């Protein structure tokens, strides 16, 4: 995991083990958390550590994983995107809106061919991402506020499209990818894996990926190096919106319906996955490897709590506490690293 950090790490090994471990705290801590949680649930419940249940966990984190790919880019740039769940929702609804529904669904929609519906839905999420990008870079609205507004705008478009109704049909390609499986492996897990791998390759091996890390590491220096910082920031906002859109379309197929407020919990889950995994909220550190560990921590936690006998209302609180702990580690790891580099 987190191989994006191994290159600088190799150069630091000469410093001795303790400083090395300290500088790698953000990669080690989430991994230890994952091992601890898995061990705990395996001991607490005989039904947890089974192949079947591993499949369940993978399926359960897939939509979050797809959304978290784009969010990882955004957080690496030291920005935030609060509109991910809203854009996922509106894109899922849009793809259903452009698909022929059963006669009992009372939505005045516009049925189109499957490919056209998918294309339009993708264009919609890309356009919303572009609005985020322009607001952030051209007008200069902080991403926190800009995407907060976009969250509301996306919810508004969703409401207008479905008008309180529920749509069920999506294009067959989306149905297959969202709820079908091949050789016993759900397509949605495969899509999530491919997108995570793709995100990792882009961040680690491309010029754009390097720019993302550099802009996140020191935005002023990136600008004084003659990088087009605004273009890079704009690009990550669009990437985030498109990943959210794909997650939303597959999510709708996965759940079997498209309706208002369907993705609300995915906002917190996606941010938590990225941050719990150890990607720095201050930008420049972390990567998809971290996000994968974060996804598993959340997945194991959510799934494991269902396997042990626990008050279901307490689960929400436990998740909140785990998130807080991860944030503390995140900030603390940053400080340790700065000290090691001082």
């Amino acid at each position: 995991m987190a191989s994006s950090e191994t290159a600088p790490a190799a150069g630091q090994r000469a410093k001795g083990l303790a400083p090395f471990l300290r500088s790698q705290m953000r990669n080690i801590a989430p991994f230890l958390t994952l091992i601890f949680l898995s061990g705990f649930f395996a001991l607490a419940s005989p039904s947890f550590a089974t192949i079947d249940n591993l499949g369940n966990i993978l399926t359960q984190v897939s939509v979050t994983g797809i959304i978290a790919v784009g969010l990882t880019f955004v957080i690496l740039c030291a920005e935030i995107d609060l509109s991910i769940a809203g854009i996922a929702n509106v894109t899922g609804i849009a793809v259903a809106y452009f698909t022929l529904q059963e006669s009992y669904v009372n939505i005045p929609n516009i049925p189109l061919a499957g490919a056209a519906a998918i294309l339009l839905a993708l264009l919609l999420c890309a356009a919303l991402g572009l609005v985020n990008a322009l607001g952030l870079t051209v007008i200069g609205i902080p991403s926190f506020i800009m995407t907060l507004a976009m969250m509301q705008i996306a919810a508004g478009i969703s409401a207008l499209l479905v008008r309180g109704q529920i749509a069920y049909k999506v294009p067959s390609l989306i149905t297959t990818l969202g709820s079908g499986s091949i050789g016993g492996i759900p397509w949605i897990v495969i899509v999530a894996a491919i997108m995570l791998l793709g995100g990792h390759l882009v961040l680690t091996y491309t010029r754009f990926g390097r720019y993302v890390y550099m802009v996140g590491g020191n935005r002023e220096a990136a600008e004084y190096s003659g990088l087009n910082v605004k273009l890079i920031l704009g690009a990550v906002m669009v990437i985030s919106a498109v990943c959210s859109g794909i997650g939303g379309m597959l999510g709708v197929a996965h759940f079997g319906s498209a309706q208002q407020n369907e993705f609300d919990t995915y906002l917190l889950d996606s941010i938590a996955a990225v941050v719990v995994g150890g990607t720095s909220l201050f930008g420049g550190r972390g990567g998809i490897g971290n996000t994968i560990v974060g996804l598993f921590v959340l997945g194991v936690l959510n799934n494991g709590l269902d396997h042990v006998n626990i008050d279901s209302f307490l689960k929400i609180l436990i998740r909140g506490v785990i998130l807080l702990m991860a944030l503390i580690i995140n900030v603390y790891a940053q400080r340790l690293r700065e000290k090691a580099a001082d």
Partner: protein
Amino acid sequence: MPEGRSPILELQGITKSFGGVEALRGVDFALLPGEIHGLVGENGAGKSTLMKIIAGVHTEFSGRFLIDGQETHFRSARDAHAAGIAMVHQELSVAPDLTVAENVFLGNQPTNRLGLVQWRRMAREAGEQLSRFGIDVDPMSRLGDLPIGLQQLIEIARVLFSGARIVILDEPTSALSPPEVERLFTTLRRLREQGTAIVFISHFIEDILRVSDTVTVFRNGRKVAETASTATSKGALIEAMIGRGGEALEHSYSDDLMLPRPSDSSVVLKVDQLSLARSLNDVSFEARAGEVLGIYGFMGCGQQELSRILFGKLKPDAGTLAVDGKPKTFASTAAARRAGVALVPESRRAMLFHQEPVYKNISISILDRISSLLLKPAQERDIAQRQVEQLQIRPPVVGLDLGMLSGGNQQKVALAKWLTYPPKLLVLCEPTRGMDVGAKNDVINIVRDLRAKGLAIIVLSTEPETVLSLADRILVLKRGAVVREFKNEPVSKDRLLEAA
């Protein structure tokens, strides 16, 4: 050196290393009450590291640390502060949006019984303290509105009057005008009379010799000399600092220097009637290939803004730029870079990535030339390695995080960024500020090489020596306007200061 007093602070056998690189090797250091102790040495010699240990910034080191003869170990800067140690860092750390009085009392404003700030008392006391320092300023004015030199003086005053027994000043005079330096020295001498121990770090050896009682010289993490300042000279100190004959290196520029006949090579940059709000007023000039244009002026004369406009970071209110005869309006720094303009700003922090390895710092500006979509790390490292060897960056390890390098070496990395594919126009702000003699000389040689390769170079500095050592032609900038041009005529430090 005062005799018969026991040291207020004593360090024995201090060793400190940063990831295998030893910054200090077995250093002994003693500080007496009522003493001004000057510290000199090249960048990376270990002065700042030692001071950060004393101020509790670095807490891990080996060796003995005694205060008033008691062995002590600080766990933080707060501990050091509680023990009466205060430090003025090289970089300004004031709150520009607060008033002068608030800055003077930062962290311990006088309050009444309800915990409310007593503004009138604070303003009165701040005014009294500052006027003892010879600073006449309205305590309720916004600090950021004052000239930088005055801001620095106020920050120093805050530390000096905080009641600390040990005061460390790291390069306090670099942003001060000569009369301001004079005021600072008067105050330091008065504090010495009261028994305060003062450590004074500076690259200006004349300043060190004038104000300090004792001088300690560092080289490569070792203390190589400690002597009474009356028993040494500038030449002797420089020789101790760099370990070789130093006379030829440090030019005093008090005599006239003949500027060459203006070059008639092609005009790379033409600036016409540039204006920016309160900073620049109708500035016009040309920069030619193979020529170094020096732009000299006091702090706040508009140099910084000018350099930012040339690199597309600021937009001028009026005026035009042309590169190679083509008019340009830079929408971003990326556009300026594409047009062949490069900038090295005065602050290294602003252009380097401290948590990234050296090679990524060097390759960042040229990635689009060596790779289209995929990165080529091997090639990046090769290019960086060549630059590191050519510029003699120490340690010559391109995989090391930049933060591990000393200031002078970081400055070379900042230059190295632009040298693999040299730009048409290189703009350097304060290229040698805060650097020791050896590193300064290296940078001067690098710039001369680039000039020989036909680059147009603009050097902006508030230090006359920097401009005089590099420039073929000199513009003097005063309150945002060009007031004098020196070309093909004799020039000296005095003439420059007079024009500004």
